[in-house]
């Protein structure tokens, strides 16, 4: 079990480093276990350094940087242990447009072999979807699936 965990961990670590570098061009990150501690007990450290910045503890990174770092790790886990499909609920919310584009570029590659269900408010993410479902509450408190044109119109009307 120890060896299995160790092997999987090493694979995830490698994918994390690669994915992080795609999200943060010129940056680097790492995932490490404590030295001399049983891997099954050890705490897992994340270090991340966007391009040009000095390595500091991860809590000093910005909200968007932390979110994208976490997505890189989730994607790394996903590459090592894929599930048949993957659901994302507004993970793109804290990202600026440039980072959403980097996120989508990697997502589209994965989506060639895996189904993704992506809940989003982000217009760039919506454009990347192959299929789009709108959910509205035309009747108070009752959800209804609609074609996206109707959903967009409902949003615009509500935005007044």
């Amino acid at each position, binding site marked *: 079990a120890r060896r299995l*965990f160790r092997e*999987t*961990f090493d694979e*995830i670590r490698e994918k994390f480093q690669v994915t992080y570098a795609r999200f943060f061009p010129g940056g680097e990150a790492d995932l490490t276990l404590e030295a001399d501690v049983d891997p099954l007990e050890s*705490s*897992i450290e*994340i270090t991340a350094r966007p391009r040009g910045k000095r390595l500091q*503890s*991860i*809590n000093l*990174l910005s909200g968007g940087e932390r*979110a994208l770092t*976490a*997505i890189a*790790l*989730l994607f790394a*886990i*996903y590459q090592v*242990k894929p*599930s*048949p*499909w*993957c*659901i*994302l*609920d*507004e*993970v793109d919310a*804290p990202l600026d447009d440039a980072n959403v584009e980097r996120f989508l570029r990697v997502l*589209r590659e994965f*989506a*060639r072999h895996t*189904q*993704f*269900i*992506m*809940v*989003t*408010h982000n217009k760039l993410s*919506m454009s990347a*979807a*192959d*299929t*789009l*479902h*709108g*959910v*509205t*509450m035309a*009747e*108070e*408190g*009752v*959800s*209804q*699936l609609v074609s996206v044109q109707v*959903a967009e119109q*409902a*949003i615009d009307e*509500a935005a007044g």
Partner: protein
Amino acid sequence: MRVSHLDVFGFKSFYNKTSIHFGDGITGIVGPNGCGKSNVVEAIRWVLGEQRASAIRGHKMEDVIFAGTRNRKPLGMSEVSITVDNNEGMLPIDYSEVTVTRRLFRSGESDYLLNKVPCRLLDIQNLLMDTGLGPGAYSVMEQGMVDEIVSEKTENRRRILEEAA
């Protein structure tokens, strides 16, 4: 194993029977705040066997049953079905299309069905074992997870990685 569609009936804000089809690649789900998008995500987790009400924002499992609106009475049952294409034989069951159904009644009674045939929760759990689906799977990524992953409390990060490894 592709997911084909999800049928939601009486689950949270889905008063009407609603069928949601998933294509290849990326299926986007959009709409205003509070319209039911995260409820769709939770319906998928629930039908795949989620046993903790707290994992889907409830206090008790009965919270998933449509609670009524100003104009509609509460329903007595919630039913969700998920249909997947099993042509690759990933599920150890001899059907090319597999539908998992879960029902919950206000009485607390639960039904589980496999291709419309009643079965036990255990049968569903065994079926989904090793597929990367089922509760606790990291195949649902939502915003709370970001904080858990980069948090300084390494137990959260540990837990997420352990489920994968």
